[in-house]
């Protein structure tokens, strides 16, 4: 089993609902975003690219690309970043020492560092005293490694887990469930009959920075360009 995701850029409308679903279900503190949506080529989201009336605007959601050949995993000096039996790249928060080599190594810039105790960051935002959001319990993998906790400790690196707390139970990640355009599809890349496999075959899927040989398990489908 190799879990992967297909993101259909034709369906993506750049609404950023997935980024917010990710943030809330994974209890990310203010300032931390595991999943972002960009307008490539533009300095500001949803501003056009081009000039003199020759314009375009496409959207690109980017979170952990779940590389088969993950540079972050290779550089981790303590083995905190690892790939589980479903092909999901995870961080063991108990083991991470916060050296941030992985952040430097990741070509997709998706890893986030907890410079501060997230509880303090949330407190500063002014939420009702004692209030906290997100999936409310610790989650460990089959070997007992801590791969989800509502407030990651200060000094550790965190990132998308394909919503381990959900997908390890056979459910879909929050971004997939929440996408109002159904632009995200999650499934088993090893299963040739899965929707993800079919879409990758049929729709000329591409991956980000393919040339680096990272072999991501997140695939993108081109935004179709009607004849103008």
């Amino acid at each position: 089993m190799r879990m992967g995701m297909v993101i259909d850029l034709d369906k993506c409308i750049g609404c950023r609902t997935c980024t917010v679903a990710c943030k809330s279900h994974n209890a990310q503190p203010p300032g931390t975003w595991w999943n972002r949506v960009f307008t490539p080529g533009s300095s500001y989201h949803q501003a056009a690219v081009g000039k003199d009336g020759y314009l375009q605007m496409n959207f690109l959601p980017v979170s952990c690309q779940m590389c088969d050949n993950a540079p972050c995993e290779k550089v981790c000096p303590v083995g905190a970043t690892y790939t589980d039996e479903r092909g999901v790249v995870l961080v063991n928060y108990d083991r991470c020492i916060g050296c941030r080599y992985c952040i430097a190594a990741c070509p997709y810039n998706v890893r986030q560092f907890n410079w501060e105790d997230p509880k303090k960051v949330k407190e500063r935002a002014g939420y009702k005293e004692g209030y906290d959001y997100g999936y409310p319990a610790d989650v460990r993998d089959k070997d007992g490694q801590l791969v989800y906790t509502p407030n990651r400790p200060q000094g550790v690196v965190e990132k998308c887990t394909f919503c381990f707390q959900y997908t390890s139970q056979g459910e879909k990640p929050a971004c997939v469930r929440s996408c109002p355009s159904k632009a995200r599809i999650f499934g088993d890349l090893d299963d040739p009959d899965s929707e993800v496999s079919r879409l990758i075959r049929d729709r000329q899927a591409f991956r980000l920075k393919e040339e680096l040989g990272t072999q991501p398990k997140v695939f993108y489908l081109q935004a179709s360009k009607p004849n103008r």
Partner: protein
Amino acid sequence: MERGKVKLSRRQFLQATAATGVLIGSVGATGFAKKAIGKGEAALPDIKTIRTTCSPNCTGACGMNALVEDNEIKAIVQAADYPDPEYNPRGCLKGLSMMNLVYGPDRLQTPLIQKGKAGVDELKKSTWDEALDFTARRLKEISDKYGPESIGVMFQVGGTGYVHKGAVSRLATLAGWNIHHAYDQNGDLPMFWPMTFGVQTEELEPSEWVNSRYIAIFGSNIMATRLPDAHFLVEARNRGAKIAVFDPNFSPTAAKADEWIPITGSSDAAVALGIAKIILEEKLYNETFIKTYTDMPLLVRIDNGKRLKADEVQGLIRPEDIPTYREAYVAYNGQFIAVHPEKLDLTLDVVLEGEVDVHLKSGEIVKAKPAFQLLKESLIKYTPDEVEKESGMKKDALVRIAREMATIKPLHIVYGASNYQWYHGDLKGRALALINVLTGNLGEAGAGISTYAGQYRIRLKVAQWWVPEGRKQNWLPWLYVLNGPTKTMKAKYPEHGIKALIVGWGNPFDQHNMSNILRERVQSGELEFVATMDFQMTTSCQYSHAVLPGVTWYEKTDLVASPVHPYLQLQQPAIKPVFEGKPELWIMKELAKRLNPEFEKYFYPELDPDQASEEAIKLMLKTGGSTVEGITLEQLKKGPVRLKSEVPGNRQIPFYEQIQHKRAFPPESLPAKLEQTAQFIKSGRIEFYKDEDIFLRAGEALPVHKPPFVESEYALNPQAREKYSFTFVTRNAIYRVHSTHSNNIWMNELQEGKPHIWLNPADATEKGIKDGDEVEIYNDHGKVTAFAVIDPGAGRKVAVFEEGWWSRYLKGASYNSLTYPFIKPTHEVYFVPGMWAPNTAWNECLCDVRKVGNAQ
């Protein structure tokens, strides 16, 4: 950490989110812990799922599941439980981050009272009794002194909560206060609807978009403003529909379209009339359709511009079975025919063109022409060359697109609010509707014209709850509060004006046009008392004398419907009210009994707020009429229920009955009575020729193109023509629902925490403005500052601001301080609240821009 427990709890969390259908209505009852224990396993954490309906004023009305642990919302996910799976999942980034408002720093904790000067001194915490006693005492004093009609009530907006908003209407009716209808206050009422079709507004449901083969979008940014439904547009395109977007700005919607046609601001009527001219010239119109359903064959007197009435003509008799709000007019097929306004059975040999002499009963002989002939004559000037001059649309493109729109069916036109919220928004809508009607694109799957703005729609008969015992209500359009009375107004202006305001679910002291004037009125004492109900500390709370903390849609029971999709849904309490917030029905009840002990009985005083709300829902379902026939509260607790319609499958296809079964126009617009709206189109037909005096005087008997600003900004100040060359357009962003979520911490992180002004690169260069510069946008009415986004997709001479920002992010200024409450006389021909009333033209606003620090 015990892994077994954790795993189980995760499964519970998931089950909870997946199994909504089963769980709805089981609020607090189905403990997953209990379930789990039943399976012989441990039980942590105890998470409940409660389905509610996200209900800001965005029309989405999206079913949401709150995941609740220990009376706290931990996360939100779309309920995705609509019986028509194509509507799943509905919901967007704002709805999913609602925790930030429910538990955010601006959440009101207690009632507040102003003991000093409103808008100046600090509000003081109070008990509910103190705040309610104080509010009731002040309202009674003002009512005694100036009359109850001097107290204005505004709430945003009816469809987002029939129970609690109805409770405000209920008390306002009992007390005799004036209500300001949100639909015209917000400028959301597209006046071409009542003028042309005799309805408040009608809209195709989004699942119908995929049935269209041509979708022409005029100034609507569906990809940003209709997030839950935007996918239907992409699907329609991928199924072969052509999508053409007419917009001065290259929007996300334009980016997904087949064709983007940039036209200059508010030139849409010129384009539409240019298209209509080609349709007429090339005989691409549907003659049977226009003879059957429209006023095109009806004769118009040339001497006075009035439609010829049957009882004026020698030898014709006005049929006797015509209600007083209708009129029998005349058509000609060699003989004069009295046209029955309730029968769409006119013979097809009637003439559409030419001129006839008519012998009147008075002995006069007058000349008359069919409206179609007059239309044809009026369109002569809209040549492709002329349209290009007015709109910037290339003439060959106009001809090509006119032929496409006339021949590719079904055609759906979407006319966006940002586009109709201009002084001549009514004319543009009438011109666009002409394309649909000439080509017979109406009343069938995928065909029609839609507007999609505001959750105004009352989809069931609510009178039993909203208007106790059928008492008379007082209504005053908001523009008169700002502008003062006019000579031509049909609404009744209170003798002393508005001396007190009761505000619910709105932020007029921040968001409404001339909010700066409102602030001054409070500070000067002209507005003697303001009470605001809200769950957050808004600018309007700061300018109030009494602040009454309400609750969100996660903390109460209510009934919700949207104009956009056809589902009736509940709000259900996922958590207990946060801090001292109270459901608004309770606040109304408490206020009612203090105003007059007789009033209390109207608010279910013996029940708690949720029980009382359920009783109100049962009452409305029971007396709600055909759209809710057979729908019960129990059904709604299980999930959303499609409202009934006269279309097979209960689909939402406007005018289906009129077109398919030849029933007279208009269909009923609730809550108005038919006689109120049918008077707008007395012929019982789709009317493009309006013969009321005000239309004739304005030169708007037929749809015409009038350039913006001439009758508004330039009339107000002729120097504006030279001084202000930019148009200040306030569009919606994906990050807010109007001003709701303006203070949502995550939304602000996604937009650099600051408001932006979008400018074309050439304009920015001329003004010496670079990306990120702080820019002042100003005119004679006001000014606002924002940070520049240099966008090659922004039209020339347009300053695009994304509306909804609270003034705390704008150095205390309201972005709408630049706007002006223009009242267009044709909006005063009739008055039916929220249906034919003067309404706000936000984008009819000129300005200039300069880099902050660059004084000119």
